């Protein structure tokens, strides 16, 4: 009897050891990874923030400095002595000096941060709006009217997601230009009005989860199909729709490649930053100030909708 107890105790101890070893291996690797990650990311963010406040006046026009990494590693560096304090003037200079020039015919337009900020909002709302309207309409239609066309559309979405067609950007550019959609927001709406994306599958499953009895009850009460959709079904799925819109808004806010190619006359903040990173002669603190201005709205959204955003990234992993 005692021997059995000793044996089972030994087994338990072994199991506990196994558990803790696995846990600790995971923790250590994750910790090392994050240590490197945090030191680069957090240092970069911290330096970007502090860099925008650093300013010294005594050399002619004004020279900008920020705590250089060498000074952190070698604190005896002499340049620390030249710092005169913290200033907010770099942020005002972001507004006056961070500009993007656009040549339209013979005229050159210069857009400052406030313009770029406005273009960012318009571009993100239009594109995310187009994306969500199209995906929602088709997802709702397929989930509600389960006819042969609906099945074909569902299959098309899966096929498009899985089948990779590469290099059609040239053709896309030609079509966009020839339809008169180049360099305007209507063109962006048309370009992004597609439903063949992974979030369509998320919305489809959300609509399929809504009991059909809701629709039938409303129909018996004499409601039209449009009223049923707007007043009964969409409000039930508003959480999913809202989250997808939010995720897409963030994606389009950060997107620089589409505006660079298709909307060069309306530079968004991301567009401006992407251009300025490799060609601008602006000083570091001004660039960093612009970076933070671009990041603040998104960070605010992230803080408010943290749970929804993280929870719905799985949509990309919907099984098909």
């Amino acid at each position, binding site marked *: 009897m005692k021997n059995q107890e000793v044996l089972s105790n030994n087994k338990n101890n072994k199991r506990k050891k*196994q*558990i803790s070893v696995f846990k600790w291996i*995971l*923790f250590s*690797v*994750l910790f090392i990874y*994050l240590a490197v990650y945090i030191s*680069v*990311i957090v240092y*970069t*963010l911290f*330096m970007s923030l502090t*860099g925008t406040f650093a300013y010294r006046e005594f050399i002619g026009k004004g020279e900008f400095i920020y705590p*250089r*990494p*060498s000074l952190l*590693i070698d604190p005896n560096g002499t340049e620390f002595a030249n710092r005169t304090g913290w200033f907010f003037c770099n942020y005002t200079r972001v507004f006056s000096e961070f500009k993007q020039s656009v040549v339209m015919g013979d005229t050159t337009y210069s857009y400052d941060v406030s313009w770029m900020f406005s273009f960012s909002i318009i571009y993100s709302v239009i594109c995310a709006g187009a994306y969500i309207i*199209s995906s929602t*309409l088709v997802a709702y*239609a397929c989930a509600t*009217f389960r006819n042969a*066309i609906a099945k074909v559309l569902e299959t098309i979405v899966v096929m498009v*997601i*899985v*089948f*990779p*067609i*590469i*290099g*059609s*950007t*040239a*053709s*896309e*550019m*030609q*079509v966009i230009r020839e339809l008169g959609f180049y360099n305007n927001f209507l063109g962006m709406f*048309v370009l992004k*009005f*597609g439903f*063949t994306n992974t979030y369509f599958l998320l919305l489809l499953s959300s609509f399929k989860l809504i009991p059909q009895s809701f629709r039938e009850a409303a129909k018996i009460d004499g409601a039209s199909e*449009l009223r049923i959709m707007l007043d009964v079904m969409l409000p039930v799925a508003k959480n999913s729709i809202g989250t997808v819109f939010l995720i897409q808004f963030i994606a389009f*806010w*950060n997107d*620089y*490649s589409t505006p*660079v190619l298709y909307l060069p006359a309306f530079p968004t903040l*991301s567009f401006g*930053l992407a251009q300025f*990173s490799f060609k601008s002669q602006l000083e570091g603190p001004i*660039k960093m100030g612009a*970076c933070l201005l*671009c*990041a603040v709205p998104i960070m605010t959204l*992230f803080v408010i909708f943290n749970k929804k955003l*993280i929870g719905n*990234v799985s949509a*990309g*992993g919907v099984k*098909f």
Partner: protein
Amino acid sequence: MILIDQKYKKKSIKGWFKENGFFLCLVALPVLQFLIMYVYVNLNSFVMAFRSYSVDEGWGWAGFDNFNEVFRQFESANLFKHAFNNSLIAFAMMLPFDLVGVFFSYYIFKKFAAWKLFRNILFLPQILSAGVLILMFDNFGDTFICVALENWFGIETGGTLAKNSEYGFYVMIIYNIFMSFGTAVIMYTNAMSNIDESVLEASKLDGASDFVEFFKIVLPQIISVFSVFLTIRIASIFVGQYNMYPIYGSTIAKDNQYTIGFYIFKEIKIAQNGNYSKFPYIATIGFLVTCITAPMVFLTRYLFKKLDPMESNN
């Protein structure tokens, strides 16, 4: 009898339209967009591969000239060869991290120490603009690593890693791995949270350790998500630009820093003035790499369907 049948048929078609009229209204515009921006664009891209363009003469037929040119460029020009190889190297470098991500996801899923902190930090780069992060990295992170390498390890870097002509490309891929790693982890974690709790509880009652639980219960259940992730990764082997544009722009990149995705982006950017002369060449490259990628995607999906226990049970 035939008349009655025809009448019935007519009625049923009419009835179908009456019943599904609203459905057709809802899908009409999105389907039209799909027909133009996907079907027509891709057909046009295919046809474009057999055409030529000059500013003076406009569009003409080129037969297989574009294909010959691509193969000639692949043999003689460094840029295209590098772009092709770099796309494959980037894929090979990023793939192991998708696998490692599964382990970290399990850590977060099991809510081990500091899981919330790890999750939020991993997610942070997903919401910030690549332009912002690249700019910050270029101005500070890059310098920080250079100074650290020089001061602590005595490695000469020349003051920049990302723009270094020799290994700048690899630095950018490592940077992209760091930035995209969180997406994989969070996707797997969310997939793990869909696993039936009773299954996990039953395994615990049977005395399964975390190690056993991970390999025998969790991993088989999320294999479908991994297959989706891998499929998308393979499908985008030649699409990825890896945020090269904010660092190099469309003119200053060296030949050995291009990927196919970045090369196509650069050429389209240059052709913004309406000069389509390089478009047929780009369409041909696209067609050829699609021919390489498509079988790989279908083979992967086929293999995973065989491997996936959920699929095999069905």
